[in-house]
């Protein structure tokens, strides 16, 4: 009787572990399969012309240069606004703020910013930047919209990284006569830099891949030339993929897979860089 009981316990553990393991692999295998599938399907259409030429014949031929450049512009534009603001907000939360109702409100606000649907950011950008501030459908309006969307990612990862710097570093620096800002800039920020960088890249990765926030704030269906100023609309890789896979009839499948591949490589290489920086920083850390 007792023997059966123990057997069952271990049998159920065997079954349970197998089930959970299968579940984990059922989650992970499709991710890898998806990436490999797009790599295989998209690779044949990648050529110098595809990466450096303008689309023509109703986008059914040629390259995707304007979309690549547009996504670069949007990513850089997003970084200009969100990186300084996000890091400063993280410094405030980690180094200045004490646990007051105001600080708690800020934290709740950040959590909520992270949860707002991307298309609602698009509506907000349309209401504030495009119409109210009269920036029009432009790189500027789209970048501003994307930067508010990426802000919570940057703030929370940067704050976590700042907090992981041991308190003793600050105490020593202050005791040597440094002011608070000198301590932050020369000691805390320096130590927390890899973590902050990881957060920044992950935030920008999100911005580069998003479509909904730029739909009505800055994305153009088709442009025969590159945008000349921040007040011009621009093509962008994710929006271009959406357009050619749903809006253009008789679109050659090769161009679709090629565009998906370029977008994927753009976004995933940012992800890999972030993962690399983080793991190297962890391995090097001496405290």
């Amino acid at each position, binding site marked *: 009787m007792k023997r059966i009981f123990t057997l069952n316990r271990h049998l159920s553990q065997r079954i349970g572990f197998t089930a959970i393991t299968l579940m984990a692999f059922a989650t992970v295998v499709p991710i890898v399969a998806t990436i490999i599938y797009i790599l295989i399907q998209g690779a044949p259409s990648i050529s110098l012309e595809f990466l450096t030429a303008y689309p023509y014949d109703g986008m059914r031929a040629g390259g995707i240069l304007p979309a690549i450049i547009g996504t670069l512009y949007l990513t850089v534009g997003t970084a200009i606004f969100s990186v300084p603001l996000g890091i400063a907000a993280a410094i405030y939360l980690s180094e200045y703020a004490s646990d007051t109702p105001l600080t708690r409100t800020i*934290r709740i606000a950040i959590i909520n910013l992270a949860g707002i649907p991307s298309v609602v950011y698009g509506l907000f950008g349309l209401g504030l930047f495009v119409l109210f501030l009269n920036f029009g459908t432009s790189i500027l309006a789209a970048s501003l919209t994307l930067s508010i969307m990426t802000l919570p990612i940057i703030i929370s990862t940067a704050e976590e990284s700042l907090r992981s710097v041991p308190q003793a570093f600050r105490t020593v620096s202050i005791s040597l006569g440094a002011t608070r800002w000198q301590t932050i800039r020369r000691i805390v920020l320096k130590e927390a830099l890899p973590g902050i960088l990881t957060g920044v890249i992950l935030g920008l990765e999100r911005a580069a891949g998003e479509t909904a926030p730029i739909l009505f704030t800055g994305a153009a269906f088709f442009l025969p030339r590159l945008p000349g100023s921040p007040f011009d609309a621009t093509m962008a890789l994710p929006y271009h993929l959406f357009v050619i896979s749903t809006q253009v009839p008789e679109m050659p499948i090769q161009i679709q897979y090629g565009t998906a591949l370029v977008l994927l490589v753009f976004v995933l290489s940012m992800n890999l860089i972030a993962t690399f920086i983080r793991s190297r920083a962890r391995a090097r850390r001496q405290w």
Partner: protein
Amino acid sequence: MEKSLNWREFIITRLIKASGYSAILFVALIFFFLVREGLPTLGEVELKSLTGTRWYPIEDYFGILPLITGSLIITIGAGLIAVPFGIGTAVYISEIAPRWVREILKPLVELLGGLPSVVLGFLGILVLSPFLRVFLDLPTGLTALAGSILLGAISVPTVVSVAEDALDSVPRSYREGAWALGATRWQTIWRVTLPAARSGVLTAVMLGVGRSIGETMTVMMVTGNAPVLAVKLGSIFSPVRTMTATIAAEMGEVANGSTHYHVLFFIGMVLFLISLAVNIAASSVVFRARKRAERILS
């Protein structure tokens, strides 16, 4: 020298504080603009029409009920996929997997979180929905089911990372105590570790659900976009349309300031309030759990 240093310090401190407060400002601004553009709806469209079952803006039918049920059915479907697989994966990574497997799996799951939703939608159109059409013998593969499967995949990383954090923060002594009493690792996971982490796991579920309500591009591309009332169980096999997809698909074509424009902002306002409620609920669960932990440990 001393003086200029003080000045700089003063200005920088002010700037940093202002940046800290900016998050509140942005949430307020977003809400303000949604209300400003969305609230006129209530004056322009009768409440009876707004809560009707017909969405056909060209003829001034603005019933948002089909859109709400569309969002609901897809979110429930996505939850049914993301919650078990997300928590299962989190348990595997945190409790079962050997160290080297964990080091591989964690970045891979994060990678899924980084995949642009438009790429998943693209594959949904080309791979998943033709497969579903043939496999289930449906008139079209662009259904609520396709949306649910892809949304499930999109919310899995959120569920995994939050739930894994929660499991990770359960003190090792809890597990050791259970093992010492003769429990197997499996019994320990189910009766000790998971219950101890339940508030974090609950947060993971809520944030995952929040993620799927707000997802836009994927659902717009794969759900067929038919604004029909989805109340039957079979609706999962037919095309539906969500609130997010409606905004994304129609906002580009409406005249600024028209009734249709106001109604789309109104839907955005509803989405904003839903995500606000979900996130405040999720963070208050964590907050309560922390209080309880402090009480027990002190």
